């Protein structure tokens, strides 16, 4: 094979399997998966994704913007439907992650219990991805990490009745399926795709931000952790994958810091602001980004770099509890 033939071969071998998958889906169409299922999947993916990204993460954990009570309830309820835990617990773990990112005490660092070699790396990645969820002793005391969320009665209600919201996250796509097809079977496959399949995809995207987002990717800022910007994850994570930017400026409402860094959550927040439904939106201008980048460059980043106190501030007996950590 000459060079040109070789290139053609690679092109065909790359594209043909993809066409095969599409063909397979078309053949299955209307038997096992129909357009109504895709609609249920899409709607639920957007609701749960925004709930986690815009709601749990930017609104609640980092107070990147403020909004009206109904919208705050909507975002928290949507986040609960994602099935990643009650808002209070989620926020407590997340704030702790920022306090001691990639250092002892981080609930989900891929460098946890670091071992050398490929096996050690995979073990670390697995721990950051999902493994940490199964750690029995793990608890981030919400009283220390998020008294502000606890003082919100609505957030306490949603946290307490969390499982009902998860069930609603399965019932709702079932309802969508029923509305579109008018059959009970349609309701069931709708619940399957918009519920279970959607849990799988949406949650693995979030997990990937914790695992891949601290392992593979570009670092714009030499933050004292291993956070990375992962461009290919940006679309499906609604912008959460600009994770190095986020660790550099945790309170920023936008995790994308350039026009080409797609951040759907930031667009939603901007839209709400235009509609006068959001205010106190935290923005970091280019000048400030560059000043901080320069300062970190001198200190040298990475997980061995000096950062916030060795022991999570909120866990010191005399510490005033606050959320000052995140800026």
């Amino acid at each position, binding site marked *: 094979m000459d060079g040109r033939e070789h290139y053609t071969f690679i092109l065909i071998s790359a594209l043909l399997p993809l066409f095969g998958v599409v063909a397979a889906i078309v053949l299955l169409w209307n038997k096992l998966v129909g357009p109504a299922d895709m609609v249920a999947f899409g709607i639920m993916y957007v609701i749960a994704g925004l709930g986690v990204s815009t709601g749990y993460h930017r609104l609640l954990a980092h107070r990147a913007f403020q909004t009206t009570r109904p919208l705050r309830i909507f975002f928290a309820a949507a986040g609960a439907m994602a099935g990643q835990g*009650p808002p*209070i*617990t989620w926020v407590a773990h997340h704030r702790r992650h920022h306090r001691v990112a990639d250092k002892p005490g981080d609930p989900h660092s891929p460098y946890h219990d670091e071992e050398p070699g490929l096996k050690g790396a995979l073990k670390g990645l697995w721990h950051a991805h999902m493994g940490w969820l199964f750690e029995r002793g793990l*608890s*981030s*005391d*919400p*009283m*220390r990490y998020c*008294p502000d969320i*606890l*003082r919100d*009665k609505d957030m*306490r209600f949603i*946290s*307490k009745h969390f499982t009902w919201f998860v069930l609603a996250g399965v019932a709702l796509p079932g309802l969508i399926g029923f509305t579109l097809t008018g059959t009970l079977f349609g309701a069931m496959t709708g619940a399957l795709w918009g519920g279970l399949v959607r849990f799988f995809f949406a949650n693995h995207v979030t997990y990937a931000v914790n695992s891949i987002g601290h392992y593979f990717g570009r670092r714009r800022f030499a933050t004292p952790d291993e956070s990375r910007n992962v461009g290919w994850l940006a679309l499906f994570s609604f912008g959460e994958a600009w994770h190095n930017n986020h660790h550099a400026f945790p309170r920023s409402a936008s995790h994308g810091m350039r026009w080409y860094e797609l951040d759907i959550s930031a667009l939603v927040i901007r839209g709400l602001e235009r509609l006068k439904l959001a205010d106190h939106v935290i923005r970091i201008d280019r000048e400030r980004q560059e000043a901080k980048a320069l300062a970190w460059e001198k200190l040298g980043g990475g997980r061995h770099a000096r950062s916030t106190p060795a022991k999570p501030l*909120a866990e010191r*007996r*005399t*510490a*005033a*509890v606050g959320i000052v950590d995140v800026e």
Partner: protein
Amino acid sequence: MITIDELASLIRQEMRGKLPKDTQIDENTRLDSLGLSSLQVSEVVFTLEDEHGVEFDPARAANAQTLGDLLALGNSVLETR
């Protein structure tokens, strides 16, 4: 004034009957001995805040070991009001 009975009933309510009826709850009961999760403890503390219209120092509430500690903290805040 927050009483031990009020606190005990809040805890029983939070545990939704999972606590055996004959479990003794008094000032010396340790919070961690009842099997409450950190989320449930905070639920109790912040419900008390709401009902009495006060704010506790969450760091001090988090350091409370026994129900007596929690009561003392709550009532000291109520007194200074």
